[in-house]
Every structure is written in structure tokens, then in C-alpha cells.
């Protein structure tokens, strides 16, 4: 499928979905707040954009997830590389990282609320925690998966450990680094919405949770759509191009 064909197919899918939604919404004998038609969602979007609420809440959520992304890059990736460089250390760290990766930030939220209170701090800790562990874990796996031959070959060319890290381990682990960032940020995005719902300090999560109290169903749906669309755009414009330019180009993955 070419890009144009794909765009066309997505357009048709979306149109069909909106049409079906309109029909069902018109047919259901219930108050409008139970299942508002798509037009109501568009109206809500227009209103919230005009008032500046939606852009502000989106900016708040993005600021939080991007903070976590930066922390993952400057802290998670180096820690994963360091742990992965020795087989013994990697074997020791593996179950520990696995444990913390599985206890998501959402499960930590009740405890974090006690420790850090109902505010920005809890949200940031929960999101950073959720992003960090899958990143460290996958970077470690990536380093361990680089064939040892590559490093051995470089040693016979006179390479130092630093040189091997730079020329072999980092590029060789790049597919897993990207996987770690993709997974970590996806988990983090969910944890962020959950934390915003509980803490309510602006952001898309707090928007949809507050809307529920006022039966503003269209606003809830708008928030949900925004959450999904933002992730799709992030993947399409940032993660994908990065992969295409690096390891997909090197033949390390097959599409």
C-alpha cells in the first residue's frame, strides 16, 4: 500500500465509523449525555479550543510525558547500557528490573499519594517511574543481544572499552533502545492519564475525569480521542522516522 492509498483507507474507515456512530446515537432512546453524536464532540472541541482549555491541558500532559522522555534518555539509557555491559551484573539486575517493570506506576499511585500528596510531584514521580523501568530493562537486553564477535573483532583492531561501547554496543542495542522508549512512553502515557485523573492537576486525564461529574460525555470522548491521536502522531513523526534512519537502514529489522 502506498502512503496515499493508506491515507485514503484510513479516511474511509474514519468516515464509516463516524457515520455508524451518528446512526446509533440517533437510534438509541436515551438522554443525549449517554451517547452524544460525533457532532457534539466536534462542538465540544471547538468550544474548548476557543476557550484555550484543550490546548492548555494537552500542553500540560505533553510537558509531563516529555519530561519523562528526557529522563529516560539521559538516565535510563546510560543505566541500561552500564548494567548490560557485564553478563554477571545483567543477570543480577534482570529479575529486579522485571519486578519493577511489572508493578506499574498506576499500582504505586495510592502509595505515592501518601508520600508525595495530591499534586504535580506524585504525577511526575509516577510517570517517570513507569517510563524508566521498561527503558532500562530493554536497553540492558539490547546490549546483551549484541553478538560478542563484534566486540572481539574491534579489540583485535586495538579498540578501547569506550570505543567498543560507542561503535558496537550502542548501535547494536539501538533496536532495543527504541523498543524500550516506545514501550516505556506508551506505559507512561497511560500512567499519566491515570495519575491526572486521581490528582486532578490539569492535563487530559483530569479533563475527562472532571467532565464525568458534570455529565459532559462529549468532553470525555474528546479527551479520549486526543489521548489516542497524540500518541499516533508521536509514533508516526518521531519514533518511526528515527527507526527508518537507523537500524531499519542497517538491515537489523525486517519490515
Amino acid at each position, binding site marked *: 500500500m502506498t502512503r496515499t492509498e493508506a491515507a485514503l483507507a484510513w479516511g474511509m474507515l474514519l468516515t464509516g465509523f463516524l457515520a455508524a456512530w451518528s446512526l446509533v446515537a440517533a437510534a438509541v432512546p436515551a438522554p443525549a449525555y449517554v451517547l452524544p453524536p460525533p457532532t457534539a464532540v466536534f462542538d465540544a472541541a471547538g468550544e474548548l479550543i476557543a476557550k484555550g482549555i484543550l490546548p492548555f491541558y494537552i500542553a500540560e500532559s505533553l510537558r509531563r510525558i516529555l519530561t519523562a522522555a528526557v529522563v529516560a534518555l539521559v538516565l535510563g539509557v546510560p543505566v541500561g547500557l552500564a548494567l548490560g555491559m557485564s553478563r554477571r551484573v545483567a543477570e543480577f539486575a534482570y529479575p529486579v528490573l522485571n519486578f519493577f517493570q511489572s508493578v506499574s506506576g498506576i499500582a504505586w499511585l495510592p502509595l505515592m499519594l501518601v508520600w508525595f500528596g495530591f499534586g504535580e510531584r506524585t504525577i511526575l514521580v509516577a510517570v517517570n517511574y513507569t517510563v524508566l523501568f521498561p527503558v532500562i530493562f530493554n536497553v540492558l537486553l539490547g546490549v546483551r543481544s549484541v*553478538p*560478542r*564477535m563484534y566486540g572481539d*573483532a574491534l579489540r*583485535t*583492531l*586495538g579498540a578501547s572499552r569506550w570505543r567498543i561501547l560507542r561503535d*558496537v554496543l550502542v548501535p547494536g542495542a539501538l533496536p532495543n533502545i527504541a523498543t524500550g522508549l516506545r514501550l516505556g512512553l506508551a506505559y507512561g502515557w497511560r500512567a499519566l492519564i491515570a495519575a491526572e485523573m486521581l490528582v486532578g492537576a490539569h492535563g487530559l486525564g483530569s479533563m475527562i475525569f472532571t467532565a464525568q461529574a458534570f455529565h459532559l460525555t462529549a468532553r470525555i470522548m474528546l479527551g479520549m480521542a486526543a489521548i489516542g491521536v497524540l500518541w499516533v502522531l508521536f509514533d508516526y513523526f518521531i519514533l518511526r522516522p528515527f527507526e527508518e534512519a537507523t537500524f531499519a537502514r542497517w538491515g*537489523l529489522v525486517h519490515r
Partner: protein
Amino acid sequence: MPPKIAVRGLHHAYVNRFTRERVVALAGVDLEVAEGEFLTVVGPSGCGKTTLLGILAGFVVPTRGEVLLDGRPVAGPGPDRGVVFQELAILPWRTVERNIAHGPEIRGVPRAERMAIVRRLVEMVGLVGFEKKYPHELSGGMKQRVAVARTLAANPEIMLMDEPFAAVDAQTRMTLQEELNTIARATGKTILFVTHNVEEAVFLGDRCCVLSRRPGRVKALVPVPVPRAERTWKRVPAEPGFEATKDMVLTLVREEVSGDERPGGERPGAPPSPGGWGGGVGGVEGGAE
């Protein structure tokens, strides 16, 4: 003058990380390689050929015995010994020219000089026009040419080659063997070339070292009575010395393959143990007997 490489009383034992078995890979190897000599090492699968090469390269510390280069003991891997690996060890994220230039880059050779080295070697191994390609865009034979060129670019005194042509098709292999012979003669490098292919060993070597089955010892050293200048696949079949030497080496190797299995250690013919060199972390101290 001491020999370029002297191997004295080399023993090596290690514990296989996965089966926990103690493997005696080498049990008393003595060997000398002269400056500029092309020595091929042949033997049944699992006879410790790769371990021997790993020790020479400096990746594996032997349990006992020593390796001297120009009379000095080896301590770890170094750029004086270039290794061409069994598996493709060129980096997938570097283009052909950046792979070849890697050794000079590590040594800090200026860019212009590096590019001159690359141009000369790309020409020598027949990769002109492929400089900007990534390894996954090349055939198996071309990847091996890159590996050989990368090692030559580092200008080592000794080249250690571990079955470098095992994974390419028969026609390509013959071409690569002829090219390697030409390159070896042109550069005058001391080469130790490990293979399980008897015909290849006799075609390439000044001498052919036959190892016994595991635990490996030197069973025989067979000189090949055909001048290296005459070594082309068109000419050698007509050389009486070539066929006779090949038959002799083949007989020596087959005696080892058909022998009884020995207790302790892997069966002959079993794939080499994972973990490559058979050493490093799991190495065992003490005697091999």
C-alpha cells in the same frame, strides 16, 4: 631469529557454561610458524581449532603453555594480530568503507589517509562501487571480502583466520581462496588459517597442520610441495604433488573422525559449543590430564 609465532606445550580446559561439562580442548600443542608463512590448521569438528586461534588472538588465556610472538609472550588481543572471524563480524551499521577504515580510525589515522587506505583495499578485494553499501546489501562472499579488507587495513603482522569461507557457496569460495593466496603473496603476511576443509587447507597452506580429535594435539605437519605462485584452481589439479598431499591429509583427518568417541567432552562432529572461543569466564585452572 625466533619464529614469528611459537606455541609451546599449550593445554586448555574449560567448563562448558551450559552443560557444565569439563572440556579439554587442547592437550599439548607445539607449533612454530615462520615469518611470511601461510600455515593452515585442519582437523575434525570440535578438535580445538577455534580455541587455538582464540588463544593466539589473545581472547583466551590458556590453562598451561605459552604463545610467543617474535619471542615475546602474548598478553590479550592486539592490533599486531588481525582476526578474520568464522561468523560475519563486520558491523551492520557501518558502510563497506567505514568498516574497512575502522582500524585506521581507531589508530587515529587522519581522514585523507584513511580514505587512501580504503581505496587501495577496496580495489585489492574487488569491491569497487560498493563503498557506500551496508553489509546487508551485499552477498556472503562480498561480506567476507569486507572482513578481509578490514583486517588488512589495520596492517597487522599476523592474520588469524577462522574458517572465513565456510558460509559461502562453492564457486565463490574458490574465487576467494585464489584471491586470498594472491593477497597473502603480495602482502607477505604471516597467516594462520583454520578450516575443516582439507582441500582448502592444502590449496592455501605452505604447510598444513593436522590436529587430532579432542583433546587436540598436533598430529602431523604436512608441507605442500606446490609453489604458492602456481596455486590456482585451474592449475593445481594438474600438479601431482597437490593431489597426493590432499589424499595424505585427508587420510590423517579421517583417522581422527572415525575413531571411538572419548568420554568427557563433546562428541566429534557435534557443533562447536556456544560461547565461541571455549574460554574466558569458565576457564579451569590446573592440569588437563
